């Protein structure tokens, strides 16, 4: 394999997975964009380090970036805690003014024509293709440092992320832990920015976590998944950019990451958009079915007879979309809750008991709202329309007990129990 390609590949992979791991903690804290701000705010530090010292020494620039990033981080924290400004105002304020200051300093260099700005340009646009062997060593060292740091401070980071008050209550050195975390984050950004540039750094921090979070709730699994997503994006992105001429690596890595990110958010089981939609649809269908059974039961209750209703009859009593009703009736027939009878439908014994249950829950809930919560009898119907589809048998039992086996609802209709 081409040694340059290999260097870029190893470099971006290490970088992306390190950034993903620190990014996961910021993600869970809901502070992902602080990383974006820090990425921009590094610039003045880098330029000053360049002006004051040897511009070609990468370590020197990294130290400058680190100092600048830390100042920005604590500046954001200070503004957030001491003023009434919203927290994202603090973030964007620090981001843009630091960056502007950096640009101003940079134009000083350009004017004085010191040349050798390649080291600086990397901090703006990122140059994955320019990764050298030295960079690979630095990235590996950083990756190891991050892994060790996260390993050593795992408990601390976890508590800091989820419950800072608790962490300090049990005597953890919260300030120190937070400082360590900040240093690690700023380091990851300092290095990452040289590969993907200022703007896209945020993607390396945020997107892997957003993707991983769609699949799991457990923190260790999430960290691992985020790192895996990041690493595979880095590999795929590097490969694509090397296969197509002139293509930049950073943006391709980010595009592949976006593919994983949006893909996970759409397709992940349980938390994904499709799964949620499916659940919502199923719920909606169940509600329509139960409403039809309830309606038929109420008609029987009124006429004391087994009634046969056609779809137009049903639509006359309760307005709904005709095709929804047709689907519901088909489902009900398949579940043996109704049978077709001439041109209409009649309840089966099973369907009758199901309709009775829905009516019972509706009336029990109305009674509960008036008796226990003191609501007026003419205000309770809409709430009960929802709750009748939600109440579980366990809650039903508690309701019956709480209300003392009531006979009548607030509108003096009987509460229909199952005959023993």
């Amino acid at each position, binding site marked *: 394999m081409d040694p340059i390609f290999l260097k870029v590949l190893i470099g971006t992979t290490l970088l992306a997975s390190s950034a993903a791991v620190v990014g996961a903690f910021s993600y869970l804290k809901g502070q992902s964009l602080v990383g974006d701000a820090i990425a921009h705010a590094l610039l003045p530090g880098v330029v000053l380090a360049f002006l004051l010292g040897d511009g070609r020494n990468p370590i020197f620039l990294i130290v400058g970036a680190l100092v600048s990033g830390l100042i920005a981080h604590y500046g954001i924290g200070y503004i957030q805690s001491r003023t009434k*400004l919203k927290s994202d105002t603090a973030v964007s304020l620090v981001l843009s003014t630091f960056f502007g200051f950096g640009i101003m300093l940079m134009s000083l260099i350009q004017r004085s024509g010191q040349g050798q700005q390649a080291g600086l340009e990397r901090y703006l646009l990122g140059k994955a293709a320019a990764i050298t062997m030295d960079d690979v060593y630095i990235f590996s060292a950083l990756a190891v440092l991050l892994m060790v740091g996260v390993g050593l401070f795992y408990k601390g980071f976890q508590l800091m992320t989820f419950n800072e008050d608790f962490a300090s209550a049990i005597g953890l050195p919260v300030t120190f832990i937070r400082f360590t975390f900040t240093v690690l984050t700023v380091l990851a950004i300092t290095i990452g920015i040289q590969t993907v540039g200022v703007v896209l750094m945020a993607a390396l921090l945020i997107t892997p976590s*957003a993707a991983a979070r769609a699949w799991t709730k457990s923190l260790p699994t999430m960290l691992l998944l985020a790192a895996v997503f990041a690493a595979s994006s880095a590999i795929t992105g590097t490969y694509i950019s090397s296969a197509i001429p002139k293509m930049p690596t950073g943006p391709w890595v980010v595009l592949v990451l976006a593919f994983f990110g949006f893909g996970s958010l759409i397709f992940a089981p349980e938390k994904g958009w499709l799964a949620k939609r499916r659940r919502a649809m199923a719920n909606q269908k169940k509600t329509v079915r139960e409403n039809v059974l309830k309606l038929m039961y109420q008609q029987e209750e009124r006429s004391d007879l087994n009634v046969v209703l056609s779809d137009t009859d049903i639509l006359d009593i309760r307005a709904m979309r005709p095709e929804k009703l047709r689907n519901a009736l088909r489902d009900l027939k398949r579940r043996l809750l109704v049978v077709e009878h001439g041109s209409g439908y009649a309840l089966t014994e099973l369907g009758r008991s199901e309709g009775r249950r829905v009516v019972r829950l509706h009336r029990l809930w109305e009674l509960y709202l008036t008796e226990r919560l003191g609501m007026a009898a003419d205000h309770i119907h809409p709430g009960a329309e929802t709750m009748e589809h939600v109440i579980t048998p366990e809650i039903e039992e508690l309701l019956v007990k709480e209300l003392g086996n009531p006979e009548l609802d607030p509108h003096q209709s009987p509460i229909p129990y199952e005959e023993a």
Partner: protein
Amino acid sequence: MTMVGDAISHAVLPGIAIAYWLSQSRASLWMFLGAAIVGVGATIVIEVLRKKLRVQSDASIGMTFTSLFALGVVLITYWSDSVDLDQECVLYGEIAYVPFNLWLVDGVSYGPIALWSSGALLLVVLLYIIVGYKGLKMTSFNEDYAAVLGIAAGLWNLSLMSMVSLATVVSFESVGAILVVALLVAPAATAYLFIQRLKPLLIASASLGLVGALGGYGLSKVLETSIAGSIATVLGALFLIALIIHSLSARKTNGYAVEA
């Protein structure tokens, strides 16, 4: 809300690239159209991620704009033969070149294009604020209350975001996508430390913006530095001074009761 502005200013890149590629011209109208479409689209994606998919709000902003920006860079690189745009121009435009980009009609010069577009922007923004004052005020302070009053909060948010992308795109050539954020946020944030009423706040931020722009321009003349960078620096310095005064006075009055 301010980070959404920042995000949109980056997210519009593919819109600009596609508009440029389709129209083969640098006319602001096309670029604006492309940017506006993508900008509004990005706003919608961010909202869907946040509300429907329960992604952390920071993260939904972050992943949306970075993805679009990356797409923009890839498109620009891909069309680099026919699209004369680059990433640097987006990151930090140079206002010093503005006077060279003249509006020519039949060989007669009407002055720099950016002057006209910025002037038009100023008028549009003023008009928007005057017409939409009440709706904007309600939605900015209390979205739920606004909804109860029958004000379409979603529509106002969307229109506000469209104004932000309009301002961004127009400012693009002159100050770049990141520094425009300094212009959007810093004056208002500085004024907000001391003023909370909306009307005085609007006037104070506009004045601070003016002071920052003039001061920054002066600074850049003296130091011969980037104009946009200098303006952002001055705005940042103004905020820093205000923050120090604010912190000192808060301490003196034993402050948190005052702040709360």
